């Protein structure tokens, strides 16, 4: 038999790094799923779900009539917090190239608004300043980064033509700022939308915003009232561009601080005690600095805390984050065609937009709260809440992105169009959004700890509730390191895969 040709031909397809990375992340998520508790523990989730669904379609606005002040306060907290955060972030962005500044910003944004609020609660009590700072501090960290990246990536040909002797200030305001101003303005107004969500959620821990009444309505099973509150919140966000006019922002920001209410008086001694006593680890507080016993006690204290709380918290955080990340991706890929002109007509798109708007406007904390009430404590409510909220955000951006794809006139339709023309073109952008969201998802898993899911945030929340602030600070530090590590890893993967780093809006 004649030997058939020995021409070396490649018979197996070669996969790109982008595909390999995606498959790797899915595999990790599947392994995580095997270790995660995703049971439904409530006895009769369906009847509660029916009652909730019934409440959603029969909103009761009667109780809401007296809530005008609450809505104003929700807006006022968001305005004050975001304004302070944006100004702080802008100043920080000017020195963002300094290493310590970058690390400082990464650290403050690694801690979620809710935890900042819980921390400030220890120092300032339930004062308006607690709410404003809780929003302003992490937002300053986020804005500093995005503003700095915007300024850095801008093409600034005008700088080269400036006459010699132009002062730095004049050069900045004439040649640097104007061309990036639109981006900065858009990003800041997006941040304000986020700020409204943060402000509403802060109500769950006692500040006088919408969340306070939502929590009451939900816990009393008064779903019609909860529905009315949510609808008001959606309207508030949907009409943002009508009432948040650029020319009025200045006036709003000046008025907002007067609407925050007075709250408890600030006691300086509380702040001092928090900073000098409460957060100092117990062994250091009790023993002398020079005794060797103190230091061995301290290392035992840290070791026990790490093994008993930090480590299990980190494992749960990681499991939840990786599962939610992949679920978010799958959901986004499934949802974006719903709002894309390439796939559906105006009817479907309107419904799709409605669904995505509601899902991304509902704070993930509230989604998790609702699912937790339905299904009982496990990772399931957290996974569903995180992936719905984040999937809707990415799906929305992807839908808009896919509309910009130019197709040839004879391109295929339906699933073939999706698989052969659209997905390959938008996938890189999709991964960029998703990896950008990775850090955000991890930060959000922490706040679900407040609802009883045993992530790092759960242990922080418990330590705060027991007024063991030294432990809380230790665990928060672990949380920060963990979050910053994911941020660095995400940036590394994005640059390895050459994904756009300009995913700021995601």
């Amino acid at each position, binding site marked *: 038999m004649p030997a058939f040709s020995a021409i070396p031909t490649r018979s197996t397809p070669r996969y790109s790094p982008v595909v390999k990375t995606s498959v790797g992340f899915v595999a990790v998520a599947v392994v995580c799923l095997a270790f995660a508790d995703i049971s439904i523990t409530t006895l009769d989730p369906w009847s509660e779900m029916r009652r909730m669904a019934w409440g959603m379609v029969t909103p009761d606005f009667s109780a809401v009539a007296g809530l005008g002040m609450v809505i104003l306060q929700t807006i006022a907290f968001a305005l004050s917090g975001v304004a302070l955060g944006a100004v702080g972030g802008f100043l920080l962005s000017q020195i963002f190239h300094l290493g310590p500044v970058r690390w400082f910003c990464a650290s403050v944004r690694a801690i979620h608004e809710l935890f900042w609020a819980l921390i400030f609660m220890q120092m300032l009590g339930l004062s308006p300043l607690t709410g404003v700072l809780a929003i302003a501090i992490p937002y300053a960290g986020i804005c500093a980064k995005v503003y700095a990246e915007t300024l850095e990536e801008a093409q600034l040909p*005008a700088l*080269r033509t*400036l006459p*010699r002797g132009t*002062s730095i200030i004049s050069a900045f305001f*004439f*040649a640097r700022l104007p061309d990036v101003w639109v981006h900065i303005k858009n990003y800041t107004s997006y941040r304000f939308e986020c700020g409204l969500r943060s402000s509403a959620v802060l109500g769950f821990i006692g500040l006088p915003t919408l969340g306070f009444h939502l929590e009451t309505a939900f816990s009393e099973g008064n779903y019609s009232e909860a529905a009315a509150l949510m609808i008001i919140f959606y309207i508030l966000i949907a009409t943002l561009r009508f009432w948040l006019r650029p020319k009025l922002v200045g006036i709003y920001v000046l008025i907002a601080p007067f609407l925050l209410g007075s709250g408890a008086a600030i006691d300086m001694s509380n702040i001092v005690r928090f900073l000098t006593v409460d957060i100092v680890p117990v062994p250091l507080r009790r023993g002398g600095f020079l005794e060797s016993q103190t230091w061995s006690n301290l290392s035992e204290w840290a070791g026990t805390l790490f093994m008993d709380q930090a480590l299990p918290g980190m494992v749960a955080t990681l499991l939840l984050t990786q599962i939610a990340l992949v679920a978010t991706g799958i959901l986004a890929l499934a949802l974006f065609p719903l709002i894309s002109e390439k796939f559906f007509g105006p009817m479907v798109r309107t419904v799709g937009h409605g669904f995505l708007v509601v899902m991304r406007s509902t704070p993930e904390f509230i989604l998790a709260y609702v699912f937790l009430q339905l299904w009982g404590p496990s990772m399931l409510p957290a996974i569903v809440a995180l992936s719905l909220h984040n999937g809707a955000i990415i799906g929305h951006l992807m839908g808009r992105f896919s509309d910009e794809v130019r197709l040839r006139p004879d391109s295929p339709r339906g699933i073939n169009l999706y698989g052969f023309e659209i997905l390959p073109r938008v996938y890189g952008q999709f991964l960029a959004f998703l990896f950008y969201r990775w850090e955000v998802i991890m930060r959000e898993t922490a706040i679900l700890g407040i609802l009883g899911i045993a992530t790092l945030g759960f242990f922080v929340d418990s330590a705060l509730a027991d007024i063991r602030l030294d432990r809380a600070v230790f665990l928060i530090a672990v949380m920060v390191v963990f979050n910053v590590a994911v941020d660095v890893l995400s940036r590394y993967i994005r640059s390895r895969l050459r994904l756009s780093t300009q995913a700021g809006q995601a």
Partner: protein
Amino acid sequence: MLFRLNNEDLGYDGGAVLRGISITVSAGERLALVGESGAGKSTLLSVLQSRYNGNTALIPQESGLVRSLSVFHNVYMGSLHRHSAAYNLLNLVWPRQQEIRRIRPIAERLGLGDKLFDRAGELSGGQQQRTAICRAILQGGDAVLGDEPVSATDQHQSRVIMAALAATFETVILAMHDVDLALEFSTRIIGIKDGGIALDAPAGDLTRSDLDFLYRA
């Protein structure tokens, strides 16, 4: 003597590389750099600009405008170094009448009188070039260095612009693609080809056909 290069190799930011370049430019010269696109005219210009320590106005190829600012503001930027930062910021937010009076005639001369408060990004390519030229004129200085400053304007406008530049600046150094215009307005022509200077002669001694070889492969 304003500029002097002595047997130097030039290359910048991925631009063309020129070898063994020697040039001296004296005050009062009107110099045209000609040659095929990609020959290294921009490289030579930017080296000349970076070596000179006095006041030069620059008209880069992409005009170097701030697209989101008005024509007025872009032109005003030529005078940023003359005023305090506070006065500059005041004009950024609220243009002063005296500055408008200073800038309007320059803009009118170059046919931009009715565009003074239009955004630079909304103008046509030729209008953007003229805005950059207005800025250079307001800025003034010992010399102007321009990279194809009239590539997008029509013949009549090109002549107005060349005359305006010649009237404002003692020394003019322009990279040009329009050989006839170069011969008409320059005192000296430098031709660049194959990574070196292929021609350096008074414009008066040259005719159009003397330059043809620069553009042949």
